[in-house]
């Protein structure tokens, strides 16, 4: 929240109306929890009453062998193209503030 308030202040805004967040499946962040605590800590600040909008990023990996990009299944992480095991996680760890909307 301090990040949003700092950015709003830099732009001489008086009120933050919306905060757009990008959250990956592997980030460990639970949108409902963030909303719950945000409502509590934003009281009496310029962000009081702001909506939080979450964009979810699914887990995606890139196969070491054939470079295919895929979302692994629950208990099968082999590449659907070449069936090899060996990958880098390329998406799913995101946890950042994309933008804020201010007045």
């Amino acid at each position, binding site marked *: 929240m*301090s*990040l*949003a308030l700092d*950015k*709003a202040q830099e*732009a001489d*805004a*008086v*009120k933050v*109306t919306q905060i757009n*967040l990008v959250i990956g499946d*592997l*980030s*460990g962040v639970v949108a409902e929890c963030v909303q719950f605590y945000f409502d509590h800590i934003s009281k009496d600040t310029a962000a009081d009453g702001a909506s939080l909008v979450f964009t979810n990023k699914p*887990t995606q990996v890139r196969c*070491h062998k054939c470079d295919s990009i895929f979302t*692994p299944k*629950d*208990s099968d*992480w*082999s590449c659907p193209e070449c069936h090899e*095991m*060996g*990958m880098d*996680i390329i998406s*799913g*760890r995101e*946890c*950042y*503030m*994309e*933008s*804020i*909307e*201010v*007045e």
Partner: protein
Amino acid sequence: MAIKVIKVGEDILGANADQARLNQELLDQNRVFTINIMSSPGAGKTSIIMNTINQLKDKVKIAVIEGDVASSVDSEKINGLGIPVVQINTAGGCHLDANMVEGALKNLPLAEIDLLFIENVGNLICPNAFVLGEDRRVMISSLPEGDDKPYKYPAMFADTDIILLNKTDLQPYLDFNPDAFRKIVYSLNSDATIFPISCKTGDGLENWYSWLESEVVKKKGNAV
């Protein structure tokens, strides 16, 4: 009033990463080799730390930062070994962050320490997202947890340098498949090193001690 969109594009954990860099600088200046130990509750973090202290304390000056949701049971055990220890109680928090570690570092005689263990809160979900200023990340996984844990907590296994596979003495009683475990770990993290160990019998611990001693020597830049 008109609504204006301001692009931010900043990591929400950026403030933590900034503090972790400061912690790392302080630890580097003092040449303290620092390990962030992560695992689920009960995998054996404190047992491994205590065994390591008993084995290496005559050769290596060790200190410990203990992270727990509550209680000082673990730090009292470690304090009993005559090792500097700082307890962090997160009061419900499920991981340590760089600010908490900064506070703990102020209470340790860093110039007199070669090796610092930071025992994170027992949790496989979010501790890996919070860098603390460590040199290496060590994760403990134990046989009773099952060989499928990397499927369930992939980021934790992908972000670690060393995996201590603990409680190998229980293998005769469990269906844990070590080959299946290795296969999925290496598929996520081909650079990981796995040391199978048993804190109960001491099996395999010599490999862990050797690795640790060589890393401490590297960081010190001369023989310990």
